[in-house]
């Protein structure tokens, strides 16, 4: 075998190795994309579960035990967050109790664990995507949910699911 033939053979091996590396990378990437589909399903179900819980509580601390209609939004809570003694989801009794909460949940039958953070604000009645500077009859909850276990291989491997829920105050006279 001449030197030229040896070099040609080595070149062919390098070429083949490059192709194989790209091939295996492609296979791994496809696996990541498929796995992220399952992540999306679980993250969505977890987020909607919390939203369901939030829909089942009172609009505000001043309306959770009183049946009196609030005639002016200024009577609503100024500080959004849980009241004293409310330190878990099951104890939250009004919508803004979720403000600032961080909750981890493991899906039953899976080793995947998800973290959700909550943020609640008064929303602008003319555009609920905007925060309101003052108190209004609308509150918006923003949730961010992402997988924390098993940890992501890289920062770009896991998407954060962002969802929002708007709750309005109403009263039947």
């Amino acid at each position, binding site marked *: 075998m001449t030197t030229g033939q040896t070099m040609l053979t080595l070149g062919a091996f390098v070429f083949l190795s490059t192709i194989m590396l790209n091939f*295996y990378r492609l296979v791994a990437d496809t696996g990541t994309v498929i796995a992220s589909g399952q992540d999306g*399903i679980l993250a969505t179900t977890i987020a909607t579960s919390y939203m369901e*819980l939030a829909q089942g509580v009172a609009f505000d601390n001043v309306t959770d035990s009183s049946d009196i209609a609030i005639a002016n939004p200024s009577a609503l809570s100024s500080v959004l967050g849980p009241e004293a003694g409310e330190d878990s989801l099951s104890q939250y009794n009004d919508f803004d109790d979720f403000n600032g909460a961080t909750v981890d949940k493991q899906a039953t039958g899976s080793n995947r664990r998800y973290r959700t953070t909550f943020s609640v604000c008064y929303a602008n009645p003319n555009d609920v995507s905007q925060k309101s500077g003052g108190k209004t009859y609308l509150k918006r909850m923003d949730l961010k949910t992402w997988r924390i276990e098993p940890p992501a291989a890289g920062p770009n491997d896991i998407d954060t699911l962002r969802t929002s829920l708007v709750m309005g105050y109403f009263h039947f006279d």
Partner: protein
Amino acid sequence: MSALFDVIASMLFGGTLFMIVLTANDIATENQSTYNGDMLVQEMLTSTAQLVEGEFRNMGFGVPEHQRTITYADSTAISFLCDLNRDGNIDTLKYTLGGTDELLDTQNEMDRFLKRKVNTGQIMSVGAVTTFKLRYHTRDGEVLPIPVPWDRLTEIHVVEVTMEVQNPYAPYRDAAMVKSGERNALYSSSLWQQTRLASQNSRR
């Protein structure tokens, strides 16, 4: 002699290349099959979940306040009232999990039908699942015993639904790779878990 060495060396190189390509092809085929299975179960799961989610969300819709909403609650079956067609008539919806013996013609030995029945109509299958589990929580977070006693049905505040779908067919694994207790095929699985507020049921 040199020519013979060249031929042997070429065969070695060629053989190695051939093995590499064959292995890659095997891996590609297996992965393709697995990914197809993953996609399939995710699609099956979301289509079944959409129906369950929608109807569980409307649990108690249109039901008069004096009437209880959930009439039966077990770990794999639930019966509740809801005005399905918004025509003023209250319908009774029942979800049950079938047995594995009803799907013996599929390769997967764990799949079974999720069934739905409206009033006295026929029992219809709404999808094939491997898990359909229900848990019931009170407003205080207490997990109610299964089946929920009749006098405690009105305490159900939250219904937790866990559903898993696996593909009915999957490529068999190499028998040498299957350990004790493991399954002999590469089944894909997708899990869905959600808590639904039985808000219309509370305090009834």
